[in-house]
């Protein structure tokens, strides 16, 4: 996992609540056994007018000009501004993979679905929860000002506007540490291998039916 450094990025707004993982990356693309290449099919059913299947050349497909991410002003966006319960639905990590592969590094929303939220941290994509009144304000600002950018400073746990307005966000201390240092969680867990073995041994004695 790459280290998460402070950056300033273009913001794109996705103004609907309950955006589900089927919308983020439709099921036909889940047949891939790879971890990369999902970005071209992010929001596939909204982004294109024709039906997408794995293996299609996205450059040859019919773009939906009405979909917000297709507008020229949002090309190169790295921060997705979203509404409540973003990422609800399935546990597919393909959803964060596709957002990251598309170029997003941060998603800001008033709330996220649990599994999606958790999956994001595993790959270095940062989901930020801000109060819905602040998110409302950011939606207004993005829509009004072309080229609207925000700075995300994970160390300070702050989203900063161009005019230095700071919005502080919460992040678990362990997750923050992993993101800032680009740490591999499996490696960290295996530092406790002895403890896991002891736990397992004790469990084997107390609840032997689990190991039969």
């Amino acid at each position: 996992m790459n280290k998460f450094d402070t950056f300033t990025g273009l913001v794109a707004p996705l103004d609907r609540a309950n955006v589900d993982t089927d919308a983020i990356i439709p099921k036909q693309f889940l047949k891939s056994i790879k971890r990369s290449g999902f970005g071209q099919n992010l929001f596939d059913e909204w982004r294109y007018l024709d039906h997408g299947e794995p293996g299609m050349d996205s450059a040859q497909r019919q773009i939906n000009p009405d979909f917000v991410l297709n507008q020229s002003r949002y090309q190169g966006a790295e921060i997705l501004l979203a509404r409540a319960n973003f990422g609800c639905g399935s546990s597919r990590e393909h959803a964060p993979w596709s957002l990251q592969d598309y170029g997003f590094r941060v998603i800001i929303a008033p709330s996220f679905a649990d599994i999606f939220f958790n999956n994001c941290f595993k790959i270095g994509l940062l989901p930020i929860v801000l109060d819905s009144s602040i998110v409302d304000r950011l939606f207004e600002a993005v829509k009004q000002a072309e080229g609207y950018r925000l700075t995300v400073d994970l160390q300070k746990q702050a989203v900063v506007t161009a005019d230095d307005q700071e919005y502080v966000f919460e992040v678990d201390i362990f997750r923050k540490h992993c993101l800032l240092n680009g740490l591999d969680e499996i490696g960290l867990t295996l530092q406790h291998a002895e403890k896991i073995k002891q736990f397992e041994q004790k469990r084997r004695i107390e609840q032997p039916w689990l190991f039969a």
Partner: protein
Amino acid sequence: MKQTLYDKLWHQHVVHQESADPNSMALIYIDRHLVHEVTSPQAFESLKLAGRRPWRLNSILAVADHNVPTTDRSKGIHDPISRLQVDTLDQNCDELGITEFKMQDVRQGIVHVIGPEQGATLPGMTVVCGDSHTSTHGAFGCLAFGIGTSEVEHVLATQCLLMKKSKTMRISVDGQLGFGVTAKDIALAIIGKIGTAGGTGYAIEFAGSAIRALSMEGRMTLCNMAIEAGARAGMVAVDDITIEYIKGRPFAPRDDLWDKALPYWRSLHSDEDALFDRTVTLEAAIIAPQVTWGTSPEMVTTIDGNIPDPALVADEVKRHDMQQALTYMGLQANTPIQQIYLDKIFIGSCTNSRIEDLRAAAGIIKGKHIATNIKQALVVPGSGLVKQQAEQEGLDRIFREAGFEWREPGCSMCLAMNDDRLTAGERCASTSNRNFEGRQGPGGRTHLVSPAMAAAAAIAGHFVDVRGLNG
């Protein structure tokens, strides 16, 4: 201190905690790891690249369910991409020595059906799977939840997961359910009440006399849809019904081990007066059969209701979402639910494909035939063993004579990763769990209902109130 069932399950599995703060990240031991073909290939690949091996092989049970065809399997899978994904699971399992029920095995089926069916899901376990509907297994008094592919790899490599303790919610449903009202209707009524994000951050325990009265199959249906209420885990306390269900199943303990397990299993309930972070109550008697009308499970009403009118909703975002949903669904506000005509019927999925579901549907359609406007009606049993049992009971004949197609087990049209799907604009009464845009096929329109309601709609051609039928 008084503990909830979730507290007990959590404390039993903490291997390590980052700090003295009970809300800090904890390392949780995983007892059962269920694996399917869609969310595992990248995990196995990374595991191999890192030179690691699975920590405990006999904790793992694998099956292919999402991509498998539900028609004749003797020729294999014709879609090369689907085939590669299933072959990859087979190869990974063969190579590492993981127990897998392959496609031709009679025990193959939907991962959340076969775990309990085999007794591989036991009370007190932590059960994980790279699939959000893993919450199903909580019906057995387990802590069961869906994980992403990075976590699949983490469990393979370490037998543990890093996580934070959830808040607790008790949803009590008391009283007696009316005739024709099922666990599916309870699930949808709860989601209608608390919303699809109502359970976010919580582990839900379903309690109350109406829950105690449910069979294990009903409890599985209910816990299955905890995730649709936003909760990663749903659970029900262990009682005689739980224990009776498990007894004699292939992976369940026997003899001395069974006797040893029982007292522990019987302790798996919330202590009286245990404190929950949130409690919700519903009265069973007033729950009517439910039908979803929109593109989120919370967009639900009763069979005697009408499609709500967005114009009456004050919240701007919500109004906009409702309008968008009605446009997608091709429906008008204020239309009575019973005037919605259907094109397809799907009875199946990890929510409703067990033997009792098939019996309930067969009971409605026996001696009748699907309406002329129904283009296709599918029954997809949850496993090969469910299919076998249903055939022994003659249910397959009832379905076939009524004009239903009797299929091989798998996820099928719940998410349409195989060939079973809706085409654009088609409207389906489905016993599955998600009515998201495109879920059952691009442009497809899904209405979530119970098996009895789906069966009744198949016969009438439109939604009807099962409470008015004699069965």
